[in-house]
């Protein structure tokens, strides 16, 4: 009997141990988290899509937020996104959108007409309680024709325009008009830009200033869930450090690789280089002296808003001959060949050649220091003058190495007797000070947002954009004739007529010489070989939704 009990106990123990071993030692299904780390050249400035102007902020936003419409992959044609369909009224001044149902923000708020109206009204409605929390620069540059946004029912809104605007639909796919969660904005008020909540494929987790921003996949995304589980934007300002981080696998992709390193990237079998002509322009703006103060904040220069001196007013630069001399003094071709290392083309107009309305008849200022000296003497400055040049501290899509270009320009201008003092300041301050008109001359770049010429010519060189404090027109070209052409072009649907206006405008601005256009550069991104699905977008925006790690 005892024996039986012992045997039974022994069997029970053995079985129990076997079962425990079976369950604990059984190989668990391995879950590999797909984390992609992207090496950026700088940190975001703010995380509110409507209140940013720089590519670093925008590329984070592109993965958190969505708008009513969006661009098709790799093009600037539009397709439905948060709006399922839309109708334009006969006079072209009212567009009615049907909104997608069942979409939720990351914080659980329902997406509906109220959210759309909140996101847009806070940018234009001076009475809106959230107007004070941002500067909404882009609204003034691109959307000032929007008079109001009206709710028809919970899933229908109407955008009412004050003027016909031929570029409005492509503009509506921009980050500026992405829809933000109203409950979140209400909760954080002026700090909402640190806690972005949208409807996009990735959710915001944390932002460690000047180090990284972490996003995770949005499990409740209205489309299929993104293939990546985690997306991290890591800030590595130095281009060679970025490349080395990519080579050792510390990051999976980088932006703005240094052109001298391209051969090294191509030779590495673990890496790939994606490159295509970018929709951008890199230029030096010459402050021609006068801007205007936009008292009523309508982003237009009204009759009662006189020209006033900008802070960066410098007597010699107000003279057209001097500005032309500057244009003649800089050898663009040499800068393209030796600093851009051939990864860009020489710019003679303010927008890239493939844009509609590009004026190829404009004859670029030749590199001719003697002529430049002659022009300076004619203008009354045979011995030159001192001038301060603002030089960007970060790489931009249109300018990989601004400090080097700044120093090259300094050296070119020294040859005609102009002494250039180089001024450098952190990126946020740089943007603010140039928008305030403090720069006498500044280096800047622009990447197109919507593929429309208006987005280059009107935003960068239009007199309406010469409003001190929110200027986009850093050269302060203020001729009314120019604005007239731009406005007429924007209100014309006839493609040919529109192009004609823009061509004329480019003639005018070339003659005024407030800008030294330097380059249209390729956009370059390098990834590790196992990263798939990334598609370059002409606007240099960075969408990681389709990306996966193999």
């Amino acid at each position, binding site marked *: 009997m005892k024996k039986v009990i012992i045997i039974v106990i022994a069997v029970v123990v053995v079985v129990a141990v076997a079962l425990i071993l079976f369950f604990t030692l059984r190989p668990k299904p391995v879950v590999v988290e797909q984390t992609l780390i992207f090496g950026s050249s700088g940190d975001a400035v703010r995380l509110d899509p409507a209140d940013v102007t720089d590519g670093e902020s925008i590329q984070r936003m592109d993965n958190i937020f969505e708008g009513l419409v969006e661009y098709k992959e790799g093009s600037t044609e539009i397709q439905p996104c948060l709006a399922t369909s839309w109708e334009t009224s006969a006079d072209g001044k009212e567009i009615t959108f049907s909104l997608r149902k069942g979409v939720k923000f990351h914080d659980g708020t329902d997406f509906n007409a109220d959210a759309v109206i909140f996101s847009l009204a806070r940018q234009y409605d001076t009475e809106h309680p959230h107007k004070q929390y941002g500067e909404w620069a882009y609204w003034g540059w691109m959307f000032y024709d929007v008079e109001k946004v009206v709710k028809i029912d919970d899933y229908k809104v109407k955008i009412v325009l004050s003027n016909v605007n031929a570029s409005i639909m492509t503009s509506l796919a921009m980050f500026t008009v992405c829809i933000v969660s109203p409950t979140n904005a209400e909760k954080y008020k002026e700090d909402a830009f640190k806690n972005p909540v949208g409807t996009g494929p990735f959710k915001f987790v944390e932002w460690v200033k000047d180090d990284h921003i972490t996003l995770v996949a949005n499990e409740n995304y209205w489309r299929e869930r993104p293939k990546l589980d985690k997306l991290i934007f890591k800030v590595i300002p130095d281009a060679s450090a970025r490349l080395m981080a990519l080579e050792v696998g510390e990051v999976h992709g980088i932006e703005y690789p240094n052109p001298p390193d391209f051969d090294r990237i191509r030779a590495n079998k673990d890496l790939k280089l994606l490159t295509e002509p970018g929709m951008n322009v890199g230029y030096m703006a010459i402050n021609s002296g006068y801007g205007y103060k936009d008292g009523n904040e309508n982003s237009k220069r009204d009759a009662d808003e006189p020209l006033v001196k900008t802070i960066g007013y410098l007597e010699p630069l107000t003279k057209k001959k001097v500005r032309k001399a500057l244009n003649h003094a800089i050898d663009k071709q040499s800068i393209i060949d*030796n600093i851009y290392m051939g990864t860009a083309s020489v710019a003679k107009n303010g927008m890239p050649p493939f844009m509609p309305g590009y004026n190829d008849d404009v004859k670029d200022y030749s590199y001719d*220091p003697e002529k430049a000296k002659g022009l300076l003497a004619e203008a009354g400055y045979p011995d030159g003058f001192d001038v301060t040049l603002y030089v960007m501290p970060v790489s931009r899509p249109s300018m990989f190495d601004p400090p080097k270009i700044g120093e090259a320009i300094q*050296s070119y201008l020294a040859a005609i007797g102009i002494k250039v003092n180089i001024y450098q300041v952190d990126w946020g301050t740089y943007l603010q000070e140039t928008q305030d008109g403090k720069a006498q001359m500044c280096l800047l770049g622009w990447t197109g947002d919507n593929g429309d010429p208006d987005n280059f010519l009107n935003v960068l060189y239009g007199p309406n954009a010469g409003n001190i404090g929110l200027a986009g027109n850093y050269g302060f070209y203020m001729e009314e004739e120019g604005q007239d052409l731009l406005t007429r072009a924007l209100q014309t649907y006839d493609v040919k007529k529109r192009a004609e206006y823009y061509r004329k405008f480019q003639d005018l601005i070339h003659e005024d010489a407030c800008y030294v256009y330097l380059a249209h550069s390729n956009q370059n991104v390098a990834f590790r070989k196992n990263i798939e699905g990334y598609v370059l977008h002409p606007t240099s925006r960075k969408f990681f939704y389709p990306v996966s790690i193999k």
Partner: protein
Amino acid sequence: MERKRESQVKELIRRLKYNKSALFGLVIILVLVFCALLANFISPNDPTPSPPDLANSLKPGFWGKDAAPGMPLGSDALGRCVLSRIIYGARVSLSVGFVAVGIAMALGILFGVIAGFFGGWVDSLIMRIVDIMFAFPALLLAIVIVAVIGQGLDKTMIAIGIVYTPQMARIIRSSVLYIKEMEYIEVQKAIGSSNARVIFRHVLPNSIAPVIVYGTLMLATAILDCAALGFLGLGAKPPTPEWGAMLSRSYSYIVSGAWWAATFPGIAILFSVLGLNLLGDGLRDILDPRLKT
């Protein structure tokens, strides 16, 4: 008096001859001074050519196949001759070093003598201020000063000078304290000499030896700090050929294979600091009476 000083100098040179490392340091410094004074004549190219010769950017020197013509140490990212920039850079570094140490000496002697000679609450006040300034790392304090007074080579000199003042003041004070107790000073006081006479005729000349030693060593750190500020973009403004700035603008091309543009300025910094340190150590061995055999 005159003969005595002459013999002191002779003695110094005689002793220096037997101190090989100090001699080596002296040679380096003489080469540097030579470069700085005669930069216009000995540098093969213009350090800041205008217009720039961009076509010759990042070309190797004499060792490379595709060498830049007439640039023995290659060219930097803007096609400028690295050797010429280093030679002109010696002028920048040495002038920053001398002016900064000069400022530190002037201020240091002033405050050090006042504190040491008069003692009491003046001494306490000055020394507490010195203590406060010592609480900051030298470079950090220099950055703060530059941030306040602005950027540029002249500002760099002032900033470094101010940062080194407390060290100088403390050194002077301690030797003044020592000399003040000497019998010959008491004699001077007893015969009714004025304070000014005592200070200028007796205290200062006798407390100057450590100042020379530490001044030389300080020169080394001043050059290093100047390069550091330049590297951080706070020192000389472009296109001034400053070693630290040259290094910081070129190091990213090491990855691309153009190592020379960053390496040679680095070597220049290394050797000048090494030379000054060796010389400073040698001078201490010679001038410090306690080390005399």
